[in-house]
């Protein structure tokens, strides 16, 4: 069984339907967003340990096992000379204060961007956790996709399923894929370490494949 696990968003208005569902293609997509969201959060000791133990690849492999499209997980090797401090420093070097849509698109007013996103989340019964991440943080946006995919899997309503699918395509088009590819390119140009190089590549590949998949589902 699969359930969502949100870190940047919280449930504001409980949705109808079960909170756990059988694993399938759709929960696999949700699970990948869950892993990617966690991977791109600001690293702490646990994040570092998981990289060292190869857990990121393991989790992504498990999450992606039922994906309806191929995702090459590949190998992730943490160099032996990387310690927790330099591990965190690499994240800061690549992403500054964090992977944020407003920062990437050069928005003059970040509050504006966040307000738009908050409305988007609210329409789907979610609210930004005030003590955690910004609304435009990559991890929050991954949380949102994770939740939409989960609800798509959980709902018994064809209409609602279509609504969640349309919302995912729209969010990928208007948000994630409007800034993440540029962010990935910018970070890649800085020569990221093997861990983040792996993560950036997976993120970019997955988002594009997911958009293709969701689009095909809707158009089909």
């Amino acid at each position, binding site marked *: 069984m699969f359930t969502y696990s949100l870190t940047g968003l919280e449930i504001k208005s409980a949705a109808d339907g079960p909170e756990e569902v059988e694993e399938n293609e759709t929960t696999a997509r949700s699970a990948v967003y869950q892993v990617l969201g966690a991977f791109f959060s600001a690293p702490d000791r646990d994040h570092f340990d998981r990289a060292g133990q190869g857990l990121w690849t393991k989790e992504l492999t498990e999450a992606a096992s039922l994906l309806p499209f191929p995702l090459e997980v590949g190998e992730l090797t943490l160099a032996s000379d990387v310690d927790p401090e330099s591990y965190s420093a690499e994240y800061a070097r690549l992403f500054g204060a964090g992977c944020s849509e407003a920062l990437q698109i050069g928005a003059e007013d970040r509050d504006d961007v966040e307000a*738009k996103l908050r*409305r988007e989340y609210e*329409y789907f*019964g979610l609210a930004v956790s005030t003590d955690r991440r910004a609304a435009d943080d990559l991890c929050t946006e991954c949380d949102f996709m994770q939740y939409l995919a989960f609800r798509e899997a959980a709902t018994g*309503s064809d*209409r609602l399923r279509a*609504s969640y699918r349309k919302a995912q395509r*729209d969010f990928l088009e208007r948000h994630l894929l409007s800034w993440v590819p540029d962010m990935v390119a910018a970070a890649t140009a800085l020569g990221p370490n093997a861990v983040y190089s792996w993560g950036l590549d997976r993120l970019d590949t997955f988002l594009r494949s997911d958009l293709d998949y969701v689009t095909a589902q809707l158009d089909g």
Partner: protein
Amino acid sequence: MSTEDRYQRRWCWDRVTWGTHCVNCLATCPYRVFTLGDTVAFEEQGGTIEAVAEGVPDLNPLGCQKGSAWSVQLTSEDRVLHPLRRVGERGGGQWEQITWEEALTEVADAMLDTIDEDGVESIVFEESVEGGLLSQAPFLRLAGLLGAITLDANGLVNDLPTGHHITFGKFSCASTVDDTFRSELLLQWHSNPAYTSIPYHHFISEARYRGATVVAIAPDYNASAVSSDMFVPVRPGTDAALALSMCEVVLSEGLADLEFASTQTDLPLLVRTDTGRFLRERDIRSGGAEDHFFLWDEGNGIHDAPRATLRLEGLKPALRGRWPVQLADGSTVEVTTVLSLLEERLADYVPERAEELCGVAASTIRTLARMVAGHRCKILEGFNTPKYYHGDLMERSMCLLLGLTGNWGRPGTGIQGLALAGLDGYFLFPMKTKKGVEETARLLEGIEQAVETMRERDPEATDEMLGNQLLALSASSGTSAPPVFFNYHHAGYRETWNRAEWSDPTMKRTFDAYLSDAVRRGWWGGVARPGAATEPRVLFSVGTNPLRRARGGRAKLLSNLWPKLDKVVVVDFRMSTTALHADLILPSAMQYERVNVQYPITHTLRLSFSDAATPPRGESRTEWQIFSALAKRLSERAVERDLLEYVDGRRQTRHLDRLGDDFVVGGDFASEEVVLDEWVRDSADAGTLPVGSSVETLRRDGSIRFTGLGIFAPGLSVAADVSPTDVMTAFGWHVDKGLPFPTLTRRAQFYIDHPWFVEADEHLPRHKEPPRMGGDWPLLMTSGHSRWTVHSISMGNRPLLGTHRGRPLVVMSEQDAVECAVREGDQVRVVNDHGAFEAMARVTPRVRPGQLIVYNGFEPHMFPRWEGTNEVEPGMVKWLHLVGKYGHLRYLPFGWQPVPADRAVFVRLERVEAV
């Protein structure tokens, strides 16, 4: 500061937002609004809309001088900036400024007194489309939560062509306005688009450049006639005779598209010659249906008319003839076709006879008829015909002309009236008990389920028909009430409407008798509210202006309705005539000071956004703020007064202590921006707006094109595919897909076999002279919208006042001026048996003798003694429109119902001697 600096400063700005005007022209042209600090510097037309179809001009620039001068009005002298309470007599002009707290408490107490003493149906709101959806939705929401009465907007303003409804089961015939470009023949008939459709007028010129012929059919040589290829001066009020004569020519000369007429219309249906009624299934089969009709197949004789499709599916219906038919009881009757009966009727309208009626030369009628038959023809119809007593006959006759010539549902054809675009989110909103997509899906699924349940009972019904059934059901539980009953019982119209000499002479009984008969038969069951015994006590006018608008006049309302009212509450941004007679005025924010959208219509098929470019001036507030605060205050006062619940007029228990919370759904809908965002997102989810649409996309783009017609009847009634790359042609589904019309016969219906229609000899279209409304006087007063204002909205706008004489005018012919000893610029008195007003004479050769034109919009307070033009309008209601429960002739909100006439009243004119 140098002149140059001053000039340059005039055009400086530091912020640009989108704005539109949400007034009753409904064009909602996207403007760029340029703001410097907290002041709007100027606005200009957006011009950013892309062409939809290759080779068809785009909608740009969309706008007119009224929209371009809107910002001036933000600071005009008639602006109301603070809550005001009347001091002294009503209309005395004495006011005191009060706080919002005081104002809301006073209104809340008046409402609670009314609920406690007389019931909530004594609280009445006037519906309107003035001010935009976010002006209307708040008070409609409060009225809905309370179970109060809202007077149906169409019953107040009679904008919608009743004849379209009689013919098509709906009034929504309008294609996107760029379809005009695809016409070969444009008839500007009962419309003056050079005045009233300025944003769209370029399509007429562009169609002409590509070879279309433009014809102006009007009594006066109006501004639209100037740029037409042909001007057909018709005697006022005789358009039905002209149209029917053209139909006679089309049929007698063999020019009719009879295949189109056979599939689309009721012309092949069989009618019993003994009763004049359609031959129904129950006539010939025991236990047969009342709404199942027949045609005569040339090969096989009598045959069921298909109900699920307009397609004839191999049938070859005879259009002319008489045949014997055996009835279920064994007797035999003769039947004939509607077309046969129609041709008998049209014999009265051969061009030479019609020339005597309508004043158009017989040769011109023939020429015009042949032109219509040989071209893709579109009638550009405004909102003028619905305002004539017999406007329905004119409209039915125009529709007949198009039906005989294959002119609807195809590119460049049809009648360009009005059709609402279905903003599903707006329709869903009153039902939402929480925010978000889950609730939307729940509601949509509930509606779909209800539709499917109805479909089980009638598997051949279309979505549009079932949508109408849902709408009719909701009407019997909603707040909307046709105003005819309110006006009859409470506003002093009963005596007027019973004046036989002002009514249709074929009316055999008194108006009283027809009205009580209609009510007794249950034709208006559940909506004939408030009843005679429920006197109104609180009246809300939100952006409406009944004392200017009411056909019947300000004096009638002041002497009959006003004395019954404990509280007249006006919510407006300006000091209208109604505001001048109010007890309390609550100042509302204007467009540019608040977010808003207007009712979208199919002309542009776009939703345009008006942003808050500046803060509201003074203490003005948005309607959402006003009515949510009033709901909260009502709850608080109800608790203080221990009036926690009551039973409304429909026996439903209402809880006042929860009202404030219910209004904003526990805080989910705390502001109008959140509400609008929900409407837009829900509409996108339902498929009527692009996926991903939100307030933010509106704010970015200013205007969004619809992607679908939605699931509700108002949108579906356009019956057309919406494509991102094509012009939309109304009724395409009927012509291309054979989808039946939502009428009794499921066809465009020219034969109405209701006994009252037979009694009035209106079972088929015909011409009737305008009744002598106002008395037996020599001049016929007509009206129309001016180019300077939308209703009275811009009557306080100095630049716009400067574009005309800035005062009420009576436009008259030179000949009448000589006969009345009047010269240009004289003050004249227009008088009839109903009332009088004074205005300045404008003498011009463009008006035909015998006609007076007084353009719509002047505020009564601009006239001496505040007696406006509506003082001479009796506001007669055509008794025939009291018919109900006859197929499609049943009440639908904003649809079929009796409406008051205000055009073609008879008057005399005299010069006012200089004092």
